[in-house]
């Protein structure tokens, strides 16, 4: 027998899509508060939100005659007609938040509008919405949600322990607070305050709370596009990103707000990584928070009920804006370079390091490098002076150059360092159309498998720019006539190079990948003995690089172990 579901059941099903767990309630209510123009949002929960969730704000409030309507499904003050969906600027818009919550919990709504002397309270549960009763209340809205899922045992089982649910809530609220620095946020659990972020007092406390105190210190504020003069075509990108070298194994701490909405976007995550390009370490991810503001008509949030994904109208321009802002920041922030060096700590030693101490003792890397657009002639001279202070001590395991500036032991990965030097030389020459080519006395053919041939084909123009002359010579066969000239004393390894093209290096564009591979296949390897003069020439060239700290694939080139760290290893303190 087919029956029409009663409205209460329909409500519960629909609510299931919006209200999955306590955090869903908090999210709805806090977003409503922010939409109401709150400058203060206080969240109080008990037993992970299963017992009560209490969200109070000082926003515009709801007039008593509209309070019942607030619980009606698809009732909202934020949209009037379908056309408004085209330009949703508020966080909530579907008008199903309160109705959904009431479907699975007991809700008390207390509100006082600015013009009103007193407040009104309405109780709602399931389909029963009470009459507004006068009550003493502060201006704004307060919503108290009790007995969440009490009438939906299935969902209750699905919910985790109160402490796990509370952790989600705390993480969410602290993260959201990043996007609203002028709003005061507070959170308390079971009668104990968890945090209070006073509005307008800067980002440090919020960043430290979200990312952890030490990682937060590695965050670099993005250059505002207005300052860096980048044409971002309708998208403005602000935020804080980790300095190169500080990174994580996953993307979980890549927080992204689009128009104040916390979202995931594979596209923009890719742009983020791309911005790091050769600064990034392979398989490691930068972290931080990005605030992307685009005109409301360029974004369509109406994709998923939990609004966690977003559809962009001009994704490529937003991608571009994100990437370029990050590039501009990393390339111009000398401080990022400094932190960069600090971040590269040998695994076993990191525990001994106090970052503040190392900052003070890292003059070699703290200097603005010659590449910085605003570097002056004296900076460059200074840099050379610094490099010459490095005294080469030895070669370790035919792989690392050991040097010192008297204050720290400096280890250089000879392959990574040489790769960086070669990469920049190749890139510079290719950009100038000035790549020398070394013709072969004995040209030879290589036969590639289908996949390799495809990779090779795709890169052939960039390869030719870099000096590799390969003529098609039958199906998947090429005749190598000339190779990029003289990057070091070795013959160019075409096959190894093509294999390498297959490795996906995040953030490098096609040409950069060609250059990175050329560099990799033309330089000294680990396990090669180097003369003293070779080592010092390598270091001198390395410090003149635009980005001396990493090889093009993102591995570190230089590691400093401060004397103070060594002192502690020997327990001399």
């Amino acid at each position, binding site marked *: 027998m087919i029956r029409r579901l009663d409205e209460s059941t329909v409500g519960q099903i629909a609510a299931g899509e919006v209200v999955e767990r306590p955090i869903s309630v908090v999210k709805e209510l806090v977003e409503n508060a922010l939409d109401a123009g709150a400058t203060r949002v206080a969240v109080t929960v008990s037993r992970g939100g299963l017992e009560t969730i209490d969200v109070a704000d000082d926003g515009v409030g709801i007039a008593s005659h509209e309070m019942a309507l607030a619980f009606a499904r698809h009732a909202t003050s934020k949209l009037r007609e379908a056309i408004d969906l085209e330009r949703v600027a508020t966080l909530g818009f579907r008008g199903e938040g309160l109705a959904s919550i009431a479907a699975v919990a007991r809700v008390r709504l207390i509100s006082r509008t600015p013009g009103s002397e007193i407040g009104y309270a309405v109780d709602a549960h399931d389909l029963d919405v009470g009459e507004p009763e006068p009550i003493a209340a502060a201006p704004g809205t307060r919503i108290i949600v009790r007995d969440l899922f009490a009438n939906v045992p299935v969902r209750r089982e699905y919910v985790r322990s109160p402490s796990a649910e509370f952790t989600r809530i705390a993480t969410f609220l602290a993260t959201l607070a990043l996007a609203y620095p002028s709003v005061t946020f507070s959170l308390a659990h079971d009668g104990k305050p968890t945090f209070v972020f006073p509005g307008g007092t800067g980002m440090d406390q919020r960043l430290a709370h979200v990312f952890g105190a030490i990682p937060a210190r590695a965050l670099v504020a993005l250059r505002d596009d207005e300052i860096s003069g980048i044409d971002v075509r309708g998208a403005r990108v602000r935020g804080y990103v980790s300095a190169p070298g500080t990174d994580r194994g996953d993307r979980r701490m890549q927080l992204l707000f689009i128009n104040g909405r916390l979202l995931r976007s594979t596209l923009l995550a890719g742009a983020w990584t791309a911005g790091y390009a050769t600064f990034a370490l392979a398989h490691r991810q930068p972290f931080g928070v990005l605030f992307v503001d685009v005109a409301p008509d360029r974004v369509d949030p109406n994709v998923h009920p939990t609004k966690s994904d977003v559809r962009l109208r001009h994704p490529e321009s937003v991608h571009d804006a994100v990437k370029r802002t990050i590039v501009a920041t990393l390339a111009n922030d000398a401080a990022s370079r400094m932190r960069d060096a600090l971040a590269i700590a040998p695994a076993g030693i990191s525990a001994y390091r106090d970052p503040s101490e190392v900052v003070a003792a890292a003059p070699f890397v703290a200097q603005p490098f010659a590449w910085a657009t605003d570097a002056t002639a004296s900076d460059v001279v200074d840099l050379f002076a610094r490099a010459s202070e490095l005294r080469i001590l030895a070669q370790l395991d035919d792989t690392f150059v050991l040097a010192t500036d008297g204050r720290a032991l400096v280890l250089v990965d000879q392959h990574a360092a040489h790769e960086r030097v070669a990469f920049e*030389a190749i890139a*510079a*020459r290719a950009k100038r159309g*000035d*790549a*020398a*080519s*070394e*013709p*072969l*006395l*004995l040209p*030879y053919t290589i036969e590639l498998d289908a996949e390799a041939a495809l990779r090779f084909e795709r890169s052939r123009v960039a390869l030719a720019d870099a000096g590799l002359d390969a003529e098609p010579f039958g199906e998947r066969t090429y005749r190598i006539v*000339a190779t*990029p*000239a*003289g*990057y070091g*004393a*070795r*013959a*160019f*390894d*075409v*096959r*190894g190079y093509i294999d390498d093209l297959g490795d996906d290096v995040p953030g490098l564009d096609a040409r950069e990948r060609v250059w990175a591979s050329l560099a990799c296949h033309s330089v000294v390897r680990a396990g090669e003995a180097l003369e003293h003069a070779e080592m010092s*020439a390598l270091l001198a*060239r390395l410090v*003149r690089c635009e980005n001396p700290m990493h090889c093009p694939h993102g591995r570190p080139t230089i590691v400093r172990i401060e004397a103070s760290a060594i002192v502690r290893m020997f327990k001399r303190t």
Partner: protein
Amino acid sequence: MKFSCSTKDIASAVGAASKVVNAHTTVPILSNVLLTAIDDTIRVRATDLELTLEHVFPAQITEPGSVTVPAKLFSGYLGNLPAGIVELAGTPTRASVKWEKSNYDFHALPADEYPPLPSSQKGTSFAIDARRFREGVNATIFAASSEEARGAVLMGTLLEIAGDKITMVATDGYRLAKWETTLARGLEDGGTAKFIVPSRALAEAARNLGSAETIEVSALGPSGNQLAFAAHNASIVVRLVDGQYPNYAQVIPASFDRSVTVNTAALIAGLKRAELVAGDRASMVKMSVSNAQLIITANSDTTGNAYEELDVEQTGDDLTIAFNARYLVEILNHIDAAQIVMEFLGPLSPAAIRPTGEATEVAHMYVLMPLRQ
């Protein structure tokens, strides 16, 4: 086994053998040298399975037999013995060495587990003056490829025998070295043969056998895939590189239309200075020949400009050509002559470099591709 011998003899034999031993081998016995006492001589053998070196020296043998000793350790010990007589007694697990009042026991591995010598079945053979052989090896093997990238063939050096002529050729695909001389004893009936020899084996042969009078070279094994170099005191057996050596003759221009004759030392010095400036630009130096002057220039955005002028003997038209200075200097460093001749066809054709005033029984030349932009 048991024998006594001079410390100098055993130290030099074991020292040479230990250079063949591969320090990173995964087969423990390959880190050892094999000592065999038989017929009043000691044979010291080391192998990395591709190359086997054996040194022979006289000894007083009281009990014939064999023992294997860790090569680096034993050679280190012997290298620190003053001149004198050393006695060695070996068992499958131990080598006891006695010198005056010093007594050492080294852990040994059973000698019968040591890889046997390759087949002694001899094929084609010829003989070469040892001093000439050393010259030829020195003149060619550096030009071979040092990387697997273009295949093992180019890592080897070609020995091409035709009657009583030997031609040694090495190339890495960019530059080529060719050296010819007359053999002390050629192939029977003016026959021909080609061997691609790992360049390292030629270097070892030159080092270990170069002080002898003549070196006997013979193909070994049923398929002739090994080559033995033997002199009175030592021998080397090497597995040949399998493959087809490229037709090098076709890349050497048959004739050239212009040339310069220049002082070798002055050219090397000029190129080395210019290369400093060209360093980050593929070591590219330009050479311009005009009015009996050779002008070397180099420039780079990061370092500056170089200009060198040399007086030369010029024949034929003027020319501007670019080279990788590093390659050119490496070639010139292997020419033992006060003056060299460089011959050209044009800025994009291979150039030839030869010594002047060389002994008539030797023909020695290099071919180098110019760079292009």
